[in-house]
């Protein structure tokens, strides 16, 4: 069964450094998402991406965040200057363009900012 993959599984970085989290969505999907989950809390929407542009972003997704689909398969989340509070699990998700609209989630990248 096709699945969303994410790399790395764990990323440790120092405050102020840039990080890029990578995702490979399911190949025929058209909508792409990033969510995050701070330890012990609920999953929060960050951004949705369709047709090579951002469809919607949350207030968490400020100017330090950006997303890109550099080729036909990868979908990346960049955090320009990480803060301690960016430490969280980051989940990528994708869904097809037609019903059913189920979003498929990747296994996540644990980001630790020290």
């Amino acid at each position, binding site marked *: 069964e096709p699945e969303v993959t994410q790399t790395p599984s764990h990323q440790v970085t120092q405050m102020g450094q840039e990080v890029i989290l990578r995702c490979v969505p399911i190949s025929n999907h058209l909508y792409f998402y990033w969510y995050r989950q701070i330890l012990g809390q609920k999953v929060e929407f960050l951004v949705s991406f369709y047709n090579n542009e951002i469809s919607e972003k949350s207030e968490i997704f400020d100017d330090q965040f950006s997303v890109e689909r550099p080729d036909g398969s990868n979908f990346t989340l960049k955090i320009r200057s990480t803060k301690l509070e960016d430490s969280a699990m980051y989940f990528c*998700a994708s869904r097809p363009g037609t019903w059913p609209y189920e979003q498929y*989630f990747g296994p996540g990248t644990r980001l630790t900012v020290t």
Partner: protein
Amino acid sequence: GESVGLHLPTLSVQEGDNSIINCAYSNSASDYFIWYKQESGKGPQFIIDIRSNMDKRQGQRVTVLLNKTVKHLSLQIAATQPGDSAVYFCAFETENSSASKIIFGSGTRLSIRP
């Protein structure tokens, strides 16, 4: 604002018993509700969904009930097994943009007693 809440943060059931996880929501405009299961160290996994024009939907060992009058959603798991141990999130999908997004509740941790 939009929110999804859960009645209990933890639920402990005897193996073989039925489990019922409840959820309340505040957004009356949503017409698509989803239950996700999240095992430790993994991303949310789709379990079952229901549209607002239905009040019940059954899957394999799982049933979702929707009461729109009181804005209540529940997940019933029949004959609970050790593999059902996880955090369960109710969620709804909003369509502010073409891509939509999922709003998650805060989760209920289900543990199974042998």
